[in-house]
């Protein structure tokens, strides 16, 4: 699996010279499978740039096909859809997998953002490409090419956000953004989803100090992420979804503190990467 980060920021895009190195775009990650399938996780503003990069290939000719995994429908995870160029090209095919009681409910949620009060697109029906919406059933795997995908809802403030586990052969990539655990930490089901992940991408929105003051918002500190990585036996932790006010220098410090937290918690052998726009990882 080839992983690339297009947006790593939480809540709202954060432009400016202070965020040039890690990037200010909101959540979007692409995964290219060994079988050549394209998987997109979350549709923050990074999606626009992913879309533009796809245009020279099949997606520019209306022959592209991709699966989109949507963790939840908060703004910063869907605000790139209307600017994703391949979705306007007839012939391209997209299947979006997200969290809802039914596909039509999820489609209705996405429609609510496309309506003419908010978007000149008016409705998903104007997208051009085929856009199918499917509801993920917690814990029930589905397949995309050579990859088996399992989704499970994590607590996220007053709502939930799906975490996804992507497995290809003996390698696994877990995407766990936007999660705020209860005081006793991640549930057994959540840890089972993360178990022995080759790469665990985890929400590290805050420092522990900031997280304590904003606990109700449902995000993790790097301590929560380090704790989850050690408890699940992950081999590589990727930090993700930084607070919009954190500068590059702040994120550098967040990464150093996270390294220290891993070491202190007995995770000295866990590799650590702070996700940055443009960074690629091969699993």
């Amino acid at each position: 699996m080839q992983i690339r980060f297009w947006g790593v920021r939480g809540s709202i895009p954060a432009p400016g010279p202070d965020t040039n190195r890690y990037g200010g775009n909101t959540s979007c990650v692409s995964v290219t499978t060994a079988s050549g399938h394209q998987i997109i996780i979350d549709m923050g503003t990074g999606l626009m740039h992913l879309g533009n990069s796809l245009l020279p290939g099949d997606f520019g000719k209306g022959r592209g096909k991709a699966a989109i995994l949507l963790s939840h429908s908060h703004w910063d995870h869907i605000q790139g859809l209307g600017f994703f160029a391949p979705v306007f090209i007839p012939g391209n095919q997209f299947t979006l997998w997200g969290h809802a009681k039914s596909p039509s409910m999820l489609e209705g949620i996405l429609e609510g953002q496309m309506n003419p009060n908010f978007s000149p697109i008016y409705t998903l029906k104007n997208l051009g490409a085929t856009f199918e919406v499917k509801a993920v059933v917690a814990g029930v795997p589905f397949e995309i090419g050579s990859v088996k995908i399992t989704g499970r809802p994590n607590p996220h403030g007053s709502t939930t956000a799906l975490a996804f586990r992507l497995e290809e052969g003996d390698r696994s990539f877990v995407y766990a953004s936007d999660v705020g655990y209860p005081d006793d930490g991640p549930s057994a089901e959540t840890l089972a989803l993360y178990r022995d992940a080759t790469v665990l991408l985890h929400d590290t929105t805050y420092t522990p100090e900031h997280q304590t003051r904003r606990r109700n918002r449902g995000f993790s500190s790097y301590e929560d992420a380090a704790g989850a990585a050690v408890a699940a036996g992950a081999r590589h932790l990727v930090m993700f979804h930084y607070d919009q006010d954190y500068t590059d220098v702040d994120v550098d410090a967040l990464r150093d503190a996270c390294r220290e937290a891993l070491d202190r918690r007995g995770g000295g052998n866990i590799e650590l990467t702070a996700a940055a726009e443009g960074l690629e990882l091969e699993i």
Partner: protein
Amino acid sequence: MASLAFTPGDNLLRMKVRFWGVRGSIPVPGRQTNRYGGNTSCVEVRPRGRWPIIIDAGTGIRRLGKSLMDGAFSEGAGVAHVLISHTHWDHIQGLPFFAPFYTRGNRVHVFARQREDTHLQAVFASQTEDPYFPVPLSSLRADIQFNELVEGTCFQLDGAKITCTRLNHPWIAMAYRIDADGASVVYCSDTAPFSDVLLEHEFIKTPPTVGSPLPPTVAEKLATMREALVAMCRGADLLIYDTQFTPDEYRQRPHWGHSTPDDAIAVAREAGVAQLCLYHHAPMRTDEQQDAILVQYRDLCVRAGDPFEVLAAYEGLELVLGDDG
């Protein structure tokens, strides 16, 4: 950056205009936009000694909100007026991140065009609650009031005179003029020129051919709309205008509801404004490209002998309008 802490009674000499977000469509962080800025639409107008009048609530309003928290707003004694041109995402997506909302006692008055079918408050509320946003409007601590406007309305805000007229944009946008302290600014974004297509409530799937004749009733409606805009811009010290497109881009997408600098210059000439500010830059426009556009149109206006100055808005640009008070 100088602090913009603001309390009524500050001895500001004249009306100030500050740009907090100048980008159209979608925020674009990255090295290519460091100088002009990647935040979406937000302009702060501060008449002398009065509360701020904010136009549009794109992502730029986040930093504006923070700057206000140095002053009366941090004590819950602030008042802000927010004029919304229209509710497309890039003009409202920063609103829930406006810090003064989270302090009890602050008062925020939001103004936007009246809808045919939905109360303005419902439009905003639907965006800021589950499943789109974790903090519903109803839970914000400030006192927030929504005011619906009809184009052509003229009203007073804390001593400033506000005028508005409608624009040519999908689902209809509103232009605003603010007169205070003997100075005036017009905010005209978003709008298509008034020549090739009438943009109202219908979704237009196929772009019309630029330059082909329009049915007389449509042409007349557009001409009336433009006349009202020119009349509202008459003699303004500053005209801020949607110039998202180059002429080539406009020919491909005349139905998207954006103008070129040529359209803005034509309105500026007819209305006799003192300064024209290019605004609502295209998301993929790099700083270097925007520099080139500015130079090109500055030269054009100099050669034509236009009396007004041409600027391109960038984050942090602050303009002082009117005569010394």
